[in-house]
């Protein structure tokens, strides 16, 4: 024979458990292998990725898609809009940390490489490239750096809701061709 107190306790415990078991049974998606990524089509390069990440050094880096690059001499991702002249002096360059490395290939073409150690993910070059160039520079969350927080801080404040979850077997989102754009 169990006492009334014990019976009430068991009843209370069961009553607590029941809604949780119900919630668990009703959940829809069981797939857990999702990663955070920036959709470059939605990204407006507001520059919040640089500071919003929980990591001291943001996991967002600029990625250069070489196959899409025009190898321009006057790269609009490399040079600032208010440049004084086209040389490599810091006041003429867009990148605040000098993370874009420029290499001569053949006249008049240059190859641009992102130094990921130096890149802070501010997206200034991305904005320039998208405005006047081919859009071959874009921001991506580097999955090797990202901690996959439960709730990405960047996703929380991103004004264009560009930070989305992607399946783990396709960890990066590259730009889609213009005609397929939905």
């Amino acid at each position, binding site marked *: 024979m169990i006492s009334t107190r014990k019976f009430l306790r068991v009843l*209370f*415990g069961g009553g607590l458990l029941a809604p949780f078991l119900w919630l668990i049974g009703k*959940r829809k998606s069981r797939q*857990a292998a999702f990663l955070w990524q920036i959709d470059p089509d939605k990204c407006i390069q507001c520059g919040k990725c640089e500071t919003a990440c929980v990591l001291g050094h943001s996991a967002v880096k600029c990625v250069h898609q070489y196959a899409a690059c025009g190898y321009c001499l006057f790269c609009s991702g490399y040079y600032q809009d208010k440049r004084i002249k086209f040389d490599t002096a810091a006041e003429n360059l867009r990148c605040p940390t000098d993370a874009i490395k420029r290499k001569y290939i053949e006249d008049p073409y240059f190859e641009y490489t992102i130094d990921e150690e130096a890149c802070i993910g501010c997206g200034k070059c991305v904005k320039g490239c998208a405005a006047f*160039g*081919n859009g071959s520079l874009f921001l991506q969350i580097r999955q090797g750096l990202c901690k996959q927080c*439960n709730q990405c801080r960047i996703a929380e404040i991103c004004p264009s809701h560009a930070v989305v979850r992607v399946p783990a077997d396709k960890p990066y989102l590259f730009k889609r061709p*213009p005609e397929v754009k939905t």
Partner: protein
Amino acid sequence: MIPILAQARFPAPEFENYILPQLQMETFIRDPIVWRVSALLLFLVVTGLCFYRWRSAKAMRLLALAGVAIFGFLFTACPCPVGMFQNLLAAFVHDHPLGYGLLLLFAIPLATALFFGRLFCAGACPLGAVQELLHWKSIQIPLPVDRALRLIPIALFLLIVVAVVAGMTFPLCSLDPYLPLFLWSSSISTVAFLVLGLFVSRPFCRYVCPYGVLLRLFSLVAWKTPAITVKICITCRLCEQGCPNGAVLPPEDAPTADLQVRGVRRLSRLIASLPLALCLGGLLGWYTAPIISGHHPAVRLLADIEIHQTNDAVEAFETSGTPLAQLQNEVAQVRHIFDWGMPLAGVLLAGVVMAELIAENRRRKESRSYTIDPSLCFCCGRCYAACPLNRKREPKEGAAS
């Protein structure tokens, strides 16, 4: 990888001898969730043994240290008390991914609380472990203030449930002050909570943690509860002074007839005012609903568009080409959820306050020893260390005096 661009203004030049560099894109390597679940299980078993069998405060401190190392730094704050219930809710309401591993991480601490009290808080919770280690000198908070502050987590919990159902991103995650610590960075709230934690024991656990609300509820009916001394209590008060969390309840005399009459009168007054209190709670929720829903991103966006303010969100919305009617529809839905959810949450909060007041005035049995309230005990073992009867040296003298 699809090498296609969004705008093709400049065609790629044809080089003679130049090899197109290949992008090196690394992928995320996740350790199997089985490790985390089994580590948590093992850790809880060891915590239980240290707390209930060996009754050692030193072992509990060591466990907190191990908890910070394993669950904090190795697993990057993994069984996260802040995010877990939001995950479950979001998985239920909005198709948010939630695997079996995460589900187990959520359920195991609750199941433990149901049987053995809040063992999870002692060391397995990385946030709790950090606060346990960085507590230096305790300032006892006066009981009425403490009780009032203890309502904050309940209010936060209810608020977050409504916010998550309304489709806000996990609102509490950005308030988690200890997460940056495990990622080797910091923020203002981290420093503030750490400094506060030096003097007030476990400020986050006691006055913020929403998962703690669930643990508190579940541990109310804990099957096994800690007892400060296995011998007869000498009511020396040392354990009450030693507990920084106010979880030790003093002994009580049997109520006199006069007190009993007064208690019954107070109780009947409380029960009579119950409907009024619930209405007040509902009103509070109803008044706060527009304030809270104003922080929902969609609501804010629509408000900005209506007053023709230009900011990043408005710009992004205009470039995306989404019709305004769709946004208005979404906002109406969000407002609907808040308009119903907030009064409900207010009623529940008022109900909790009244239930606590009623429980305070219930008829109590006479008790001759200091006991532990399992719903407030974080299983640190300080009372074991403080109790003179538990010390191995001269046990007979202590019992005689």
